[in-house]
């Protein structure tokens, strides 16, 4: 038990250390562009959300417009903030249809493309790309409103990197639908449009190429929030459906687990399996019998010793002396077992040994031949040694 306590102590102190380190770490801002309504980092839109909420009814979602179209009526405006707005064909068709029927959609995106942009005859362009000289001039750029009913003289300054994109008529503006009627809402320093109001059928789109204008960073400082407010005020005072699909993607139901947990029988199966595994770990970890420490048994090293000595002979490839050892042992064994003492060189050897041992004369002859051959030579080959070994083995295992 005392040992268990020690481990427990180690683990807790380790966790405490980890917690301490995590807490003591300096808080850092996350400069990723999230545009999420609940993100308090510079490029989140928490502030916008807070500003809108008291006066507006807002719903949030992570759905595409196509999925949305049946659940919202004409009394709802749709707000989309994204860096890249690339709806697919069906999506774009649904939006056009919705707006044609009198709906309103607010889209703020650095890049617009696809069927929607084509139909509306709009494309986004990059200010750095179009005017190379822009790097050198100042790092900020102003935006001002174009509607004469508003304060058009007021210049709202933004960092140039955050408002680099602008809206231009599409090059391939095929046949601009007569239904579209475009009005510029805001322009930048270069008098390029950064916000447009595009009428389509009974409704209209508000297109903005500067989504970052709506982020926490700019809404909190100075009075730049007025620009955002002015842009958003083009929307009729309906309920707003704010879909973040185009920036954040589908937050829900992204993992298979989500699906499993949403389906009842699968949820049961999942919980039963997990519980079973936990119980299994808990119960099978218990010992059925005590721990037995490993005790190394004594080792008989004689074989190792033999192979070491043999290795020394083997390196020298001293076949002859090995063969002599084998012959010696063979003679000794025969003598010991059968009291047979005739020397292998003797002419009676084969016959006598065969009679004495009952081994086939041929087998004895082979052994005798090998022995005589080896004794007569100064050096022998590995082949001859192998032969001798084989014949002796055959002799004993008749």
């Amino acid at each position, binding site marked *: 038990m005392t040992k268990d306590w020690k481990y427990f102590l180690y683990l807790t102190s380790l966790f405490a250390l980890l917690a301490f380190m995590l807490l003591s770490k300096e808080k850092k801002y996350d400069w990723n562009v999230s545009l999420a309504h609940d993100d308090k980092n510079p490029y989140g839109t928490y502030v916008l959300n807070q500003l809108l909420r008291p006066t507006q009814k807002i719903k949030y979602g992570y759905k595409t417009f196509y999925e949305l179209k049946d659940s919202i009526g004409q009394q709802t405006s749709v707000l989309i903030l994204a860096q890249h707005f690339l709806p697919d064909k069906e999506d774009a068709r649904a939006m056009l249809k919705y707006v044609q029927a009198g709906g309103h959609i607010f889209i703020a995106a650095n890049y617009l493309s696809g069927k929607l942009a084509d139909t509306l005859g709009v494309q986004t362009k990059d200010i750095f790309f179009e005017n190379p000289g822009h790097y050198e001039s100042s790092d900020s750029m102003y935006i001002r409103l174009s509607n004469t009913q508003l304060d058009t003289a007021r210049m709202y300054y933004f960092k140039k990197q955050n408002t680099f994109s602008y809206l231009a008529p599409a090059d391939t503006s095929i046949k601009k639908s007569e239904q579209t009627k475009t009005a510029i809402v805001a322009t930048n320093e270069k008098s390029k449009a950064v916000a447009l109001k595009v009428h389509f059928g009974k409704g209209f789109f508000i297109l903005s190429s500067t989504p970052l204008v709506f982020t926490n960073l700019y809404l909190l400082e100075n009075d730049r929030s007025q620009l955002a407010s002015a842009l958003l005020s083009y929307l009729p005072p309906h309920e707003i459906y704010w879909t973040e699909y185009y920036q954040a993607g589908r937050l829900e139901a992204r993992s298979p687990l989500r699906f499993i947990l949403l*389906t009842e*029988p699968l949820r*049961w199966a999942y919980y039963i399996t997990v519980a*079973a595994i936990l*119980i299994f770990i808990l119960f099978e970890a218990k010992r059925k019998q005590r721990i037995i420490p*490993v005790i190394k048994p004594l080792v008989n090293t004689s*074989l190792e010793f*033999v192979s070491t000595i043999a290795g020394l*002979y083997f390196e020298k490839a001293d076949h002859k002396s090995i063969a002599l050892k084998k012959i010696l042992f063979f003679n000794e064994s025969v003598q010991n077992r059968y009291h047979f003492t005739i020397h292998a060189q003797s002419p009676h050897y084969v016959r006598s040994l065969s009679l004495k041992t009952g081994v086939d004369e041929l087998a004895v002859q082979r052994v005798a031949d090998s022995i005589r051959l080896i004794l007569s030579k100064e050096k022998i080959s590995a082949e001859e040694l192998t032969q001798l070994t084989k014949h002796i*083995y055959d002799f004993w295992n008749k």
Partner: protein
Amino acid sequence: MKKFFRSLFLTNRLFLLLGSIALIFVLTFIFQGFYFVPKILFFVGLVMVATDMVLLYRVKKGLTGNRVVAERLSNGDENEIQIHLQSYYPFHTKLRVFDEAPHQFQRRDIEFVLFLAAGEKKSIRYFLRPVKRGEYFFGAINVLVHSPLKLVVRKFQFSMDKMVPVYPSYIQMRKYELLAIHHYLTESGIKKIRRIGHNQEFELIKEYVTGDDFRTVNWKATARKSRLMVNQYQDEKSQQVYSLIDKGRVMQMPFNGMSLLDYAINASLVVSNIAIKKSDKAGLLTFQDRIGSFLRAGRTNHQMAIIQEVLYNQKTAFFETDYSSLYARVRQSISQRSLLLLYTNFESIQGLHRQLPYLLALNRMHLLVVIFFDNDELRTVADKKTDGLKEIYNQAIAEQFLYDKKRMTKELAKYGIHYILTAPEKLSVNTINKYLELKARHLI
């Protein structure tokens, strides 16, 4: 509660059940319907688990058991262990029994499965072969009890923590002792010895067996019995038999798990016992780099117990043996001509030559028997069918070593020293034979 949790185990069947219920849930999802089936199964399963727990834990006593072990275990022999179990459950139970054998056995697989009817008693027998002397600690007997439902298991523990010492082989000792008392030593592989020479003290008339001296035929008795009868004369008594046990490096080598030293200790115990039973005096001397223990020869009944204790307590560091100190001690302490059974081992002829002067000196005063060991492991290599040149070399070297042993015996014989070259397993038998042979030949 803690106790409950400790004793509660779950079976594979339970996990199988849970798994199949999960599977059925998945199937109902695939076929879109019958959701109620697995749900019902799940709750039925829960109820069954609860029932099983009640069944197992309602009977408080449940199961009793104990382990029966001899007071001391015999080294190098198969020792019987018994486990007695009795069920108090009113139903059939399945038991898995795990016995916690002492660590020295390195056995993690002592598991038995048995079935007990209501109230039935059963015993389990198994055998353990220790190969080292010393204290052995048994743990608990763990019994996992399954009810007929076999979903949960209750664990019982009995006979916790018992120490049993392992002594030199008293089983062998008893075995040969009985043989010695009943003059059966000629049986069971112990060879017949032709008696040369006579002692005049008459002992008994017995039936003639091959090997008896026919000059001793008692013709009157033969006529009475119409079978050949011979007179038997008493052996010489009160001769001293000393076991000299080398505890040095050479005795460390194990065969069949047990070191040569322990073989030697077992054999000297057996021989000492027989010597005492034969009215001789048995003594003991152990040595390595210096003399370990010395026990003067004696033949009181108590002598055997002392020998056993001394042998039990032999410890060694397996240092290099010093024969000069052995010689000095023998010269100093053993004055009467005695039979010296020297248990040692020589692996090389040089090793023997080094000690030969001391052996000769010992043999001059006493009757010395050098006991050394045949290497079984080498024998297997020598008899093996070889495959490849390297193995032929190995075999030849092994044969060389075996041949060296033979040469050593010749060397000893040349100097008139008695020897025993034996496989470790046959040590006791061969030593007894030698003792009886030397005694019969009146060489002591």
